[in-house]
């Protein structure tokens, strides 16, 4: 179980508990957090689950693979060094307290 915080562009914050083996994307879906579309359902195809990991993050996240890196070229909002696909971020105890920022638009 991990607490994940989703921060919306308007400043609203939603904090939810997410169980393993979900992803940060599914954590949003299961808890009705708006702002992540995930049209491909988590198969790293669509880029509509884009999030920005908080700049101050020190929690261990998996390295980005080449598919995720490629898909991030197609996001609706600008990609930054903090960009990730939330469907490629598995949830476990080690990321308890993760803060992600949602982009203005996903498609």
């Amino acid at each position, binding site marked *: 179980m991990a607490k994940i915080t989703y921060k919306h562009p308007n400043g609203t914050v939603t904090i939810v508990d997410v169980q393993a083996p979900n992803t940060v994307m599914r954590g949003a879906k299961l808890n009705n957090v708006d702002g992540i579309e995930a049209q491909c359902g988590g198969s790293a195809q669509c880029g509509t689950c884009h999030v920005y990991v908080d700049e101050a993050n020190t929690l261990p996240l998996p390295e980005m693979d080449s598919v995720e890196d490629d898909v991030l*070229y197609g996001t609706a909002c600008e990609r930054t060094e903090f960009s990730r696909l939330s469907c490629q971020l598995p949830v476990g105890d080690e990321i308890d307290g993760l803060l992600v920022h949602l982009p203005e638009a996903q498609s």
Partner: protein
Amino acid sequence: MAAHAVVVVGAGQAGFDTACALRSRGFRGRITLIGDEPPGPSYRPPLSKGYLAGTVAAEEIALRPPSFYTEQDIELLPGDRVASLDRERRTVLLESGLRLPYDNLVLATGSRPRTLPVPGASLTGVLSLRGLADAEDLRLRLSGPPRRLVVVGAGFIGLEVAATARGLGHDVTVVEAQPRALARALTPTVSDRIVAEHRERGVRVLLGREVTALFGDAEGRVQVMELDGGERIAADLIVVGVGVLPNIELALAADLLVGDGVVVDAQLRTSDPDIFALGDCARFPSPHAGRHVRVESVQNASDQAKCVAAAICGEPYAYTAVPWFWSEQYALRLQIAGLTAGHDETVTVGDLADGKFSVFCFRGGRLTGVESVNRPADHGIARRLLTAGTDLSPETVREPGFDLKRLPRTPTTPTASPSRTTTQERLSVHA
């Protein structure tokens, strides 16, 4: 707007997303979602891929947990069907006998698989794949010892089922009436590569061949498929994937304008302005195709849902989202951005031999779509370019060393609320 009631017919991707988009926009009226598939709104793509292979669980198919509907005050009536519409009184009648009033009605009835018009098509062991129940049945039949599976139709669903079944070790044959696979959807370059992959994996792919009859044993179980020319193939299991038909019966009976799909305008309104139609069942004017089309994809259902919700909330806009689609077969990651049918020129970038390439499709020198195989960056960037209306000439793409990743990033207009000017321009350019 408190008294406003929206009734959504069909609790699939399009109906579910409409209900969500209404609430996201702050709609406070009553939302009733009626669906005849008992488990409630679920996601179909894994049914021919991960769910069939056993790597995706049933819980992961549900679009949301049951608590969602209570939290969002969406009245879900699963396991019921809308039997008829009364447009004059603005009510719908359900099979359970319930009558519901509406201010706006949304037809999100989807589509159903076409059946095979040959003798023997109703034998046991002849299946089609649409819902969770179909997928469960097929998964069960594929979970035992190797079977002789024949897939009729080399479309996306047929080929995905073939790939999944082959991956599980079954003996698989694909029979397609057209001279090539995915003929309506893809360029020959990509469809040939996909067929080559199936053949390399040991699937027998018969192109330009028609099924003429199916024969069964004494218990009515399918045993043999007969093709034109008389060839016979032994089969324990047949999956028919020869396309779908839009569910238009309700609209037809209610005298709405119907063609191959419920005909809607740019805001997805039917010929009755209080009634909308979207998703697989709707035939809409596409600025990308330059004519009315029906599109069967998650993207189309989801993006149209936002457009319908906006119109119901009094902020209508024309539907102009760039269509996109994906398919997964073996390790092939196939992605299509835009509409590639009707092109008059293509340029292929990348390496066909190592299976990483994109086909850029042009009409009259303008980019209309990109088909990518294992080149996800091309796909995403192409979607952005098409959304922004940025042009890319065939000459540019043909230049040695061309790489979409190196193009400067152009800002895109989010499709959720495109500005009026963009919409107008696009519609007139393609009209």
